[in-house]
């Protein structure tokens, strides 16, 4: 009898994986299935050029204003002038030369399907592409594109009807250096979106030295062997022309090897500030002085370096009020063996590195993080975290397996416990693909009320992860537009669910790494069937409030009604 009891106990503790039980999938990867077929090309030749492992990104944006998110995917190219794409280590096999591609989402015609409309769009992105930023620069209600490259950047004006025109020269927004992430935001509250472009390193194939790993084998150089070129701030004059205000605005005073940028009102003064994640240099927090200038307060604010005072390899960055205290917190991804950083905003832009207290320390050590964003994947009202990973150093296990591109690492999803900490969700097959992820962008691609994820992989396919679970909770979908019909990037939304539950979100397309996000605000409200009010603080400073905003659907809120 004693033996039988023991056997029963053993049966009860058999893990679910043995019995074949699995938890429901949070995401389903559907890129190829829905026509989003894209393979990134990095031009790798074996000479260990740093740009090969740096790109590229992508954007989710509604270029044709039909109510669903379209997609732009950034492409690499060859790095040396006499190299043919078909002859590199991972030869290009496409029917035409490598080129960034625009995909139209035909969801509103009945089914989630993407169609490649690059050819007819007028977008000719054949440089060595890095990133993409989205913003409506002429207030015509159509989102425009800024493409950052290793080399000359490109500004594409959306003319409507699916057509874009290259206005780089006329707009004065070129930057011929190695640009990475960029952000559109209205720093002077004049109603026009300005542009900050982050630059990485003064790299050329000619000035790239031979670098070595600690085992003496050839390896990629750190960016520090190249000079930091400095970032660039362009002020939108409202007439189609931008003015380079980098020097007068003060953002030329500090240099860094910049990779990530996010803009937000960190000190809650109604003016948008800038945070730049630097690779190997102190991060910068450019506090808006409300007079067209900025001061870097990062060190004093406690957001420049980690808690030990060490600079780390800042890659991607995002901002969100993860702890629900009404302030925007910062999350920065780093290299493997460093830990990612969560800078908690205690108010008035005073930050504390609380990474380990939030449970994000150890999980981040295992991988090299790039794209990242706060989002509420399960619509429970708490902002969760996504991190796209991919090594920049050979992964020994993959080398042993003779993997031809042995940098792959899984991506990570962290669930917000609602108590100031996160728990890594480990059992999701779609996150376990060993790919070299770089960009990551969030948006509700199928308009079903939960946040989907687009991941861009270096030397790999783009992945579209459709959320399978979020809309089991209730949600509020908001599009915040100005009087001109433009998405009001920088607008602050407060969703009053109950007296004690106010959810703060911001309208943005920036953040993450080399990528552009859905400008709409998707707010999970858990089991609540309604919200008391929605308050919006517009970038110009005015505040409006809406009552009776319907849940479980998208609603457009227009400034000034």
């Amino acid at each position, binding site marked *: 009898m004693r033996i039988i009891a023991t056997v029963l106990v053993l049966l009860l503790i058999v893990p679910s994986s043995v019995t074949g039980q699995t938890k429901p999938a949070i995401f389903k990867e559907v890129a190829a299935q829905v026509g989003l077929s894209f393979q990134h090309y990095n031009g790798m030749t074996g000479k260990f050029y740093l740009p090969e492992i740096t790109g590229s990104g992508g954007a989710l944006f509604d270029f044709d204003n039909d109510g669903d998110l379209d997609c732009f995917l950034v492409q690499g190219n060859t790095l040396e002038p006499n190299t043919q794409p078909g002859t590199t280590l991972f030869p290009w096999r496409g029917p035409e030369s490598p080129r960034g591609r625009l995909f139209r989402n035909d969801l509103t015609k009945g089914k989630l399907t993407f169609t490649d409309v690059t050819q007819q769009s007028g977008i000719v992105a054949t440089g060595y592409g890095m990133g993409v930023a989205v913003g409506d620069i002429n207030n015509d209600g159509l989102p425009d594109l800024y493409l950052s490259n290793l080399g000359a950047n490109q500004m594409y004006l959306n003319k409507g009807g699916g057509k874009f025109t290259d206005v780089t020269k006329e707009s004065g927004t070129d930057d011929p250096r190695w640009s990475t992430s960029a952000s559109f935001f209205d720093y002077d509250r004049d109603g026009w979106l300005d542009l900050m472009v982050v630059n990485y390193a003064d790299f050329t194939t000619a*000035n790239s030295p031979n670098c*070595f790993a600690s*085992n003496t*084998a050839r390896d990629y150089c750190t960016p520090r062997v190249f000079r930091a070129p400095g970032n660039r701030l362009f002020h939108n004059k409202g007439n189609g022309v931008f003015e380079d205000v980098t020097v007068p605005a003060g953002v030329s005073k500090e240099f860094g090897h910049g990779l990530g940028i996010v803009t937000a009102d960190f000190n809650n003064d109604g003016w948008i500030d800038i945070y730049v994640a630097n690779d190997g240099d102190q991060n910068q927090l450019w506090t808006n002085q409300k007079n067209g200038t900025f001061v870097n307060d990062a*060190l004093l604010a406690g957001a420049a*370096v980690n*808690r030990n*005072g060490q600079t780390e390899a800042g890659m991607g960055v995002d901002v969100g009020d993860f702890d629900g205290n009404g302030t925007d917190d910062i999350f920065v991804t780093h290299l493997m063996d460093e830990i990612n950083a969560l800078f908690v905003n205690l108010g008035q832009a005073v930050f504390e590195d609380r990474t380990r207290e939030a449970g994000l320390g150890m999980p981040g050590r295992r991988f090299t993080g790039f794209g990242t964003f706060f989002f509420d994947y399960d619509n429970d009202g708490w902002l969760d975290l996504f991190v796209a990973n991919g090594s920049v150093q050979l992964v020994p296990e993959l080398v*042993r397996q003779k993997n031809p591109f042995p940098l792959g690492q899984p991506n990570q999803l962290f669930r917000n416990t609602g108590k100031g900490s996160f728990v890594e969700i480990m059992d999701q097959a779609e996150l376990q693909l060993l790919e070299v992820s770089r960009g990551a962008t969030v948006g509700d691609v199928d308009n079903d009320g939960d946040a989907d994820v687009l991941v861009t992989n270096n030397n790999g396919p783009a992945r579209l992860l459709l959320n399978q679970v979020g809309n089991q909770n209730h949600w509020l979908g908001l599009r915040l537009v100005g009087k001109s019909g433009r998405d009001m990037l920088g607008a602050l939304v407060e969703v009053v669910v109950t007296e004690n539950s106010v959810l703060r979100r911001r309208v943005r397309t920036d953040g993450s790494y080399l990528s552009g996000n859905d400008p709409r605000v998707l707010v999970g409200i858990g089991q609540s069937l309604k919200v008391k009010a929605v308050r919006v603080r517009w970038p110009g400073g005015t505040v409006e409030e809406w009552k009776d905003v319907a849940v479980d659907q998208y609603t457009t809120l227009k400034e000034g009604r």
Partner: protein
Amino acid sequence: MKNFLAIVFLLISTTVYSQSSRKDLVAVRLPDLTSVEKSVREQVTELQDSLASASKNPATTETALAEAYGKLGQIYHAYSLIEPARDCYLNASLLAPKDFRWTYLLAKLDQQKGSFDDALRGFRIARSLRQDYVAVPVNLGNIYLELNRLDEAKASFSAALELDKNNAAAHYGLGQVALSSRSYAEAIRHFEATLAQAPSANRVHYSLAMAYRGLGDLEKVKAHLAQQGSVGVRVADPLLDALQNLIEGERLPLARGKLAFEAKRYAEAAEEFRKAVAAKPDSAIARINLGVTLSQLGDVEGAAEQFEEAIRIEPGRVNAHYNLAILLADQNKHEQAIAHLQSALALDPNDTSVGSLLGSELVKAGRCREAIELQRRLNLKLIECHPKE
């Protein structure tokens, strides 16, 4: 007879133990050495061969085999070949479980690669083998700190202080525990104690600044932020430090020299850079670093010699030309300085530091037309120039 029996019993038990421990040994995951430097490949291969011979030889004692595994593990560890190093240390510690070295280095490796559960287990065993090695409780404290297990971290750092009451790393760890708990005054006390023992550890000033910020003392915050730098605190760890001596070539002394230079310990930096030059005489980087350090020490002639040699080795080194030009300019050798600055500018036409110095040297040499042309081209501030007659 009794003695004989005892000896026989001992032999049998040793044999049984030996077979058992050898049976448990893991297969070492040999690293791919095809792309490493020849000297390193030879160094590693030699030890791999020694281990292979020792393993095959039935007469090899457990101790000798453990030593062979341990030595190979150290070489792998020194070159950051983490997985094979771990396999070797694991085998060494299985064969010689009472040998502190292998248990400790295995735990340290686990700590370095973020396998904290294994590292904790290993350090606990290491502590039972040797109580006086202060790096053990400090490492334990650091792991607990990273795991946010603050009470255990505090206990470990306190244990380290019992071994060495002035241990800077233990004080720093306790300061971090206090800062995490927002016990700012206590944090300040420990960080001050750290700096008292390790004044060159200028990174501690950042932690001090954050602690003073917690107390609202903005003046002290600013004062400490102004002093903060990149030199941290580490516990004395002879076993780990010894690994560095196994590395062949220039890179280790270069790295050490850089650290010493950043901490403004110029004499020590020069010594390391000299070692780097000795290890690789045709290293332009080593010579430039030595030159810069010598100029900090006031040895202008020695510095110039190193820069000249660096230019001979690699004529395309902008830094070598620029640094040499600075020395020459300081000695009013303007024409020579100009020649090197022109070389540097030809290599990097957009370098405004070079352009600026070249402009100023051209002015000093009375070569006004060239100076004005350059200043205009590079958008530099125009300096008044008097042509030489």
